């Protein structure tokens, strides 16, 4: 394992039409890092993730994954380089069955006939295993989030980007998902970037935090430090 950051964002700037949504954002996530991206509504969190996977074009700046420049790659290529992205609301395809959603996630892999990953994901989410041949439209919000994460894991990513997994979920389910992220890191060495409104929850499971404010990095540092810093909490995190 190299000591260079696994995911490195250098001076990233992006626009929504004429409006600048991200200004000179830099971020380093080490191997097996758990990084929270926080900030108010409209601070640019979702745009940051969408720019990382090429769903949104970068105006300038660079994104490096494992020292490879992926800034201008189309989304479907970025995914095959090892960056997985669970968009806001999960992006589950409700017309497909649970099993089809999961298989879709690993379809691009050369070893897609190997069932190991599929079985692992099923073991990770028992409710999905029970409903594997049902369409995803029959799942609850928490189950859909599990399915979305499961589909991302089917790609065996190096880095998992999660956009507001707690959105619309009961606090208990949110805690389960946060705990799961730590477990995954411990077991598989997964690196995670977690975008969250729920700052307290996100900081309690991550080891690094970055606060965006109007598209700029307002502050960043170790998660426990941010949690303890009253000024940051009041100014940006609202608790």
């Amino acid at each position, binding site marked *: 394992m190299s000591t260079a950051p696994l995911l490195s964002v250098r001076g990233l700037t992006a626009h929504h039409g004429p409006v600048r949504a991200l200004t000179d954002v830099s971020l380093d996530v080490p191997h097996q890092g758990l990084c929270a991206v926080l900030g108010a509504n409209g601070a640019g969190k979702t745009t940051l993730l969408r720019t990382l*996977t090429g*769903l949104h074009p970068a105006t300038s700046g660079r994104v490096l994954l494992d020292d490879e420049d992926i800034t201008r790659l*189309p*989304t*479907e290529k970025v*995914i*095959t380089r090892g960056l*997985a*992205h669970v*968009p806001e609301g999960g*992006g*589950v*395809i*409700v*017309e*497909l069955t649970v099993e*089809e959603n999961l*298989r*879709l*996630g690993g*379809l*691009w892999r050369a070893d*897609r006939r190997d069932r190991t990953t599929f079985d692992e994901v099923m073991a990770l989410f028992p409710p999905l295993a029970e409903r594997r041949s049902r369409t995803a439209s029959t799942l609850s919000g928490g189950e859909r989030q599990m399915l979305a994460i499961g*589909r*991302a894991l089917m*790609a065996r990513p190096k880095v998992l980007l999660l956009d507001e997994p707690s959105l619309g979920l009961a606090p208990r389910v949110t805690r389960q998902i946060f705990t799961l992220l730590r477990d995954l890191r411990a077991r598989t060495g997964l690196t995670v970037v977690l975008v969250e409104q729920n700052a307290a929850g996100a900081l309690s499971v991550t080891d690094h935090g970055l606060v965006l404010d109007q598209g700029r990095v307002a502050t960043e540092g170790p998660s426990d430090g941010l949690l303890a810093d009253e000024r940051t909490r009041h100014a940006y995190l609202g608790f």
Partner: protein
Amino acid sequence: MTHFINLTLNGLASGAGYAALALSLVIIYQATRLVNFAQPALALLSVYTAYTVTQLTGSYWVGFAAALTVGLVVGALVERVIIRPIARTSQLNAIIVTLGLLLVIQGVVGMVWGNEQHGFRYAFDYVGRFAPSDVFALASVGGVALLLFLVYRFTPLGLRMRAAAFRPEAARLSGVKVGLMLTVGWGIASLIGALAGMLAGPPFLSPNVFDVVFVFGITAAVVGGLDNPFGAVVGGLLIGLGMSYVSGYVGPELATLSALVIVVLVLSVRPDGILSRPTARKV
């Protein structure tokens, strides 16, 4: 009773052509929410190619294969070269362009092959009740529909195509090349459109030969539910049967009108078509 059976068999045979054309429209609509008005023109190009190839080689089946190949290739090319850049600006523009393409291709076919009628043979003997050519029409459309179902439901390509059609962004995030899936979809759709042309074209070809067929094809697609391939097949057969019964029992002059009656009846009961998916969508 014999009369009824005759009418039913005739209806199914002519319905097969409508079903195939409806299927080709639905495949594209499902993936892009776009009604491809150029579909009959692509079929026209395919069938005229078959006409020429058959004349040159003397073999109907070489011409048949040429028609399907032209359908596949030209359909894919139209999507990649013409529709995709325009669909980026607006969906409506793309629909208008398919309409323009219809006129252009019809014009070009008239320039190349002439506007007078050409005799064009059926695949098999067509004389008599439920002749071999009728059996062939039903069997080939049934076979294509079944094959399509199997590909969509059970192959990785089918899974990718469905994902790309339902949720393009989620598909891209799963590593699916959504653009390629669209091109493949247009190719398959136009291949089936070419098949529809080979079935509905005879006995005479002219640049406007598919105008009426297209009206019934799109009627069939709407009746069945524009986003359901099965609905397209059911709708096509239903239109074929309805027209056959009406022309047999009431009079052939009312056959076309009966298609309209079927549309009105079906849509007043099921506004999205017989087999449409529920329209509730996530916003």
